[in-house]
């Protein structure tokens, strides 16, 4: 049997096939690797339960600090590891530009919606995969947001983002002392993660399934 994949057509299946084809040809890892990166990403988020409303909206209410603790420790560890990988030629930096207007306006909209939805674009899909219908409704809203952004990019959104002030990184402010800056940054951020007091908001709907001695809120 011959399998024919149409990658030039206009219909939905061939446009999805074009997505896979693009990943195969763009040289950022094989199709299997990219899929696997997603599986591990989703697995880590699900296994640590940081996709829960109680963790993200809970942080917005300052009643849960697991999300910032995990985020800051991740950044601290990765910043040091990545810097030396780049030095050794094993990786490259991919810096996003400083677009003040876009960053501030986008950050405000993002912060408001993250507090209300209790998810972000990385944790939302994990919640959908574990059966949260309200987040699926949020994703439909997101798709429409993506549609509006694409349709009015030239007329509204690109001008809103303002001009770029270049791609700066922290070590560039301290020429000659890059290594020191990286170490201080990484260690400080990791220390912040450890020093943020651990506060948790639990979900009774998860806890009630556990035997009394395994309940996380009882110690």
């Amino acid at each position, binding site marked *: 049997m011959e399998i024919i994949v149409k990658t030039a057509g206009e219909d939905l299946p061939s446009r999805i096939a*074009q997505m896979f084809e693009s990943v195969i040809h*763009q040289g950022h*890892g094989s199709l299997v690797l990219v*899929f696997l990166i997603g599986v*591990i*990403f*989703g697995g*880590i*988020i*699900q296994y*640590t339960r*940081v996709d829960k409303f109680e963790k993200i*909206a809970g*942080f917005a*209410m*300052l009643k849960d600090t697991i999300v910032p603790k*995990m*985020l800051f420790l991740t950044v601290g*560890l*990765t*910043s040091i*590891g*990545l810097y030396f990988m780049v030095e050794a030629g*094993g990786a*490259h*930096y*991919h*810096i996003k*530009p400083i677009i003040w207007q876009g*960053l501030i306006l*986008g*950050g405000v909209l*993002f*912060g408001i*919606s*993250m507090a*209300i*939805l209790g998810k*972000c*674009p*990385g944790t*939302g*899909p*994990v919640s959908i*995969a574990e*059966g949260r219908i*309200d987040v699926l409704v*949020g994703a439909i*809203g997101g*798709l429409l*947001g*993506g549609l509006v*952004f694409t*349709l009015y990019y030239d007329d509204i959104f690109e001008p*809103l983002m303002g001009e770029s002030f270049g*791609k700066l990184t*922290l070590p560039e402010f301290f020429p000659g002392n890059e290594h020191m*800056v990286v170490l201080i940054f990484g260690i400080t951020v990791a220390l912040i993660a450890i020093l943020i007091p651990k506060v948790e908001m639990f979900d009774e709907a998860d*806890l009630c*399934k556990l035997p009394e001695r395994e309940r996380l809120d009882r110690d």
Partner: protein
Amino acid sequence: MHRLPWWMGAILMSGLLLMTFSVFGADRPIGASTYVPYFAGILFDLDPEKYTYLKEIKNSGAWEGVMLLGVLFGGFITSVFLTKTFRFSLIPTGWKRYKNNSVLSRLLWSFFAGFVMIIGARLAGGCTSGHFMSGMSQMAISAMIFGTVVMVVLVITGKLFYHTKED
């Protein structure tokens, strides 16, 4: 509810980021919001040649799109077999406690927040993954500006939007 401690999650996530950045991995950062307009383009049958933005995100949108399929798969498998937390639900426990008991209210707010979230992420050029995790790990100033604004606005919104004084 079985789960990994936050520090173990951070170590694993850091390993995944480094592997993805590595030239032996994908030689690029992890991002998780470009796929949304990319999928919108596919679903609503927009011609990629006619829209500037679709041309800009052609490659990264496809990359994140495939990654997202993995995220859905990984999240589903983990929730069913490891944490055993898979269940259908319409309203989070925390919403009932600090906002209201109305399913309609939760769904309408979710829809609204999802819409605004993608506009915000695309204006800034990244989200929690692309800016906060990948960007801050590269010590990018853009990521630090975004991260600070998001954290401040997140906490202010949390105080104003939810009834946090009731317990």
